């Protein structure tokens, strides 16, 4: 499709801030979203791995992981809203077209996710004694189906991402014989190695989560240290083996890029992302050598940085295709600057959101490490009061500004 037509599809309202802000936020939030997706898949797979075993530690891990998995689906959905929002802002011609061309699957995404998530809950409800190997497993098929369906929704998202990169194919998909095909029942483009690469990252990312998990529960005297040692060993194996497998799959993905962007495979972006993944594995190895230390939590942090670098490379590939091949420059979107809504977001996100979540996570962290009832310290109480005050202030500002503006 010609560049002129791609530009014609842009929204004429423009955007309320510089496009680079949306680009950066899109990359960062995608990284967080995909990390949550990978943890969700990893935790679900570990649930199955443990549930089908009679081995006590594996069953115990399955019991923990089903709880992690169901929370992670929520987290993945919530975090997924942000990159979904930002991609529509600067890549609207591509995102909307890719979606409409496979509309039936886009709607299917919602239903499949709903069923997959519900089945996970069904398995959870039916197996409250999962940690006990003597208890018979109930409805394991629900969990198997849940994992399969979650992979299907991941694949649908993968297809949409691929379709938006191929404007040259759009008309042949939409009007294959000169007549419009408007049912949207076909998935037109996919790249198996790319999909497998992102899925395979579930192993090292979930491994990093397990490293933090085993460290966190060492503070509790009611959790058996031998179990935590077993989890630690499993976690590092997942990071090492999973990291290497992911790198190999990433290499195959790069080797099979379309001719028009084949050169991207050797670009700095790819080397930096690969270096990030290798660095993450190396860092985990280093932390393991330090024994039981708070550095264990840093593995999760470094893993997140590695995923951000992968997300940056993914964005650079999109840029290489859409700008390099099709001439579309996401950064020359016309700007209708709106300072109020821009500042409202950054203050809400940076000040209020950070403050409230810091309070929430502090309470959750402390309560999880406490046997019995956790009593908050004066500092934590103060954090809570400030969090409430900020929320009240935000709501007051909404009404005061709104009424004044309305009355003017």
């Amino acid at each position, binding site marked *: 499709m010609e560049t002129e037509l791609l530009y014609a599809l842009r929204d004429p309202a423009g955007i309320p801030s510089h496009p680079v802000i949306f680009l950066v936020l899109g990359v960062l939030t995608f990284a967080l979203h995909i990390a949550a997706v990978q943890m969700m898949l990893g935790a679900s797979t570990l649930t199955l791995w443990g549930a089908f075993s009679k081995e006590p530690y594996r069953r115990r891990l399955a019991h923990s992981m089903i709880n992690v998995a169901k929370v992670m689906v929520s987290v993945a959905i919530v975090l997924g*809203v942000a990159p*979904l929002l930002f991609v529509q802002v600067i890549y609207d011609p591509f995102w909307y077209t890719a979606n409409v061309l496979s509309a039936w699957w886009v709607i299917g995404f919602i239903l499949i996710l709903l069923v997959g998530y519900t089945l996970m809950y069904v398995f959870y409800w039916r197996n409250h004694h999962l940690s006990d190997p003597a208890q018979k497993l109930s409805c394991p098929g629900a969990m198997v189906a849940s994992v399969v369906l979650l992979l299907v929704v991941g694949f649908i998202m993968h297809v949409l991402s691929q379709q938006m990169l191929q404007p040259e194919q759009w008309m042949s998909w939409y009007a294959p014989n000169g007549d419009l095909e408007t049912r949207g029942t076909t998935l037109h483009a996919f790249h198996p190695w790319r999909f497998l690469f992102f899925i395979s990252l579930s192993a090292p990312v979930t491994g990093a989560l397990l490293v933090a998990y085993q460290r966190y529960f060492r503070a509790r005297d009611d959790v058996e240290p031998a179990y935590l040692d077993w989890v630690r060993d499993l976690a590092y194996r997942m990071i090492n083996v999973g990291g290497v497998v992911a790198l190999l799959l990433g290499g195959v993905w790069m080797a099979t890029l379309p001719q028009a962007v084949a050169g991207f495979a050797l670009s700095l972006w790819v080397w930096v992302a690969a270096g990030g993944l290798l660095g993450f594995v190396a860092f985990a190895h280093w932390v393991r050598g330090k024994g039981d230390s708070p550095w264990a939590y840093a593995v999760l942090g470094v893993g997140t940085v590695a995923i951000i670098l992968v997300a940056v490379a993914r964005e650079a590939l999109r840029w290489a295709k859409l700008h390099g091949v099709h001439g579309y420059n996401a950064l020359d979107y016309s700007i209708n600057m709106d300072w109020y809504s821009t500042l409202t977001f950054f203050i809400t996100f940076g000040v209020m959101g950070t403050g409230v979540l810091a309070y929430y996570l502090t309470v959750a962290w402390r309560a999880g490490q406490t046997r019995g009832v956790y009593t908050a310290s004066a500092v934590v109480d103060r954090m809570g009061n400030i969090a409430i005050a900020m929320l009240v202030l935000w709501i007051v500002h909404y009404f005061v500004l709104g009424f004044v503006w309305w009355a003017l």
Partner: protein
Amino acid sequence: MEFIGLYPTWHEPTIGSGWVVGLIATIHVLFSHTSVGAAIFFAFLATIAYRRNQPELLTFIKKYGLFLLVFAYVAGSITGVGIWYSTTVASPRGISALIHSFVWKWATEWVFFVIEVVGVYLVVYLVGKVDQRTHLRITWIFALASYATMLIIIGILSFMLWPGKEAWFTEGGYLNGFYGSNTFAQLAMRSAFMFTMTAVVGGIVASRLTDLDLRREIIRKLAWLGIASTITGTALFSWYTNTLPEHAHLVMQARLPDWFSVSLLAVLGGILVYFIASLIQPRLLTPVVASIATVSILVFGLWPEEVARESIRKPYVAGEYVYSNQVIGRDVPGMGIRSEIPVIQAHGLLKTHVFLPEELREVNGENAARVGRAIALSMCANCHSVTDTGMRPLRNYLGGHTDVARIKTYLKGALTTGNTLYMPLIPLTDEEAEALAVYMASLNDPQVPARYAAQRADIARAQSPSASVSMKE
């Protein structure tokens, strides 16, 4: 040549893409309103529980919270994203208009949404595991963040119907688009009715409580909440309708059936009776009865309301400038937006639509029906199904006529003048109108395209120089 940024069309042949959006949106409204109302109700109950030392109330919070985790937060968050997805494929330029004006507001809502989702887990799972004051703080934060999500989305929903202030069209600006009479009226009305939904759905959980005293107390509290919110919401509904633009009232008079208002009052009356009965006789409330009431609210309350909201913003789909067929129908100088109607009038739709195959950009005898179908899919299918089922099928508007010339005259009169109240102005060149007429006639008689092609061929032969020569001979 200037192109207008129309996307491909998705046409769901069985029920229509519009109904798909409507179904997902209606279900989401039930989930989201219930959860916001419940968050505030939890804060109220937790405050009572800790102040009056009634820890049994926390049992209900935990049970209702767990129920909501699946009912509202699993299904609610998925259908929330589902509204984006379904509108993306059914009305890409409609959702794009909202996204591009309110991206930061949606991003701000996302911050509250993250707090809300973390909050519901903490409220439910930390009952009895943290000290009372901490749990109360957690619950209030959850309630405030939940309500903030509603504050934001209401402004966007109001804009979708009618930009807050007229100044938005000339000056642009987020504040002009977001805040207006309708914003606050809609917020007030929805705030009331969200408690009605909370009370109805809460009945499913309350009626399952085994502690009979607690069961009675909670059911009565829910009943009072339901009675107060239904009466308040009904009063606020008239404020809401008074803030609607004049053309919305005209569309309501013209399009909504006479029984609509009566049925709405009947639904509200039924809800009141339901709450009064459960207040007087809590034993009557069972999980089955409460579930039926929930489904009834969905089917008889929310669905008609969503359909009505969809109808009254016609012919527009967003901000009174994006037509339901995705064409930008008016200038918005404040945002640098120009109407696309003059471009289509000057060059025709076929020449300016981005997503048309080259062979359909010119009309001839052979492809007239195919071109007509492409025009119908692009300009009509968002509101009119091109199949026999679904939303307002096109063929039903012709009264069985198959005369191409008559249909063409009808189309030119009804579409290109912009005189039909709830229909977009659709400029069609003479050839485009004829192609659309051929296609529409073919919906009632599949032989029409062949006859039309033969007719055009005859005319062409008659007009060709060689034909003239042979006739003279």
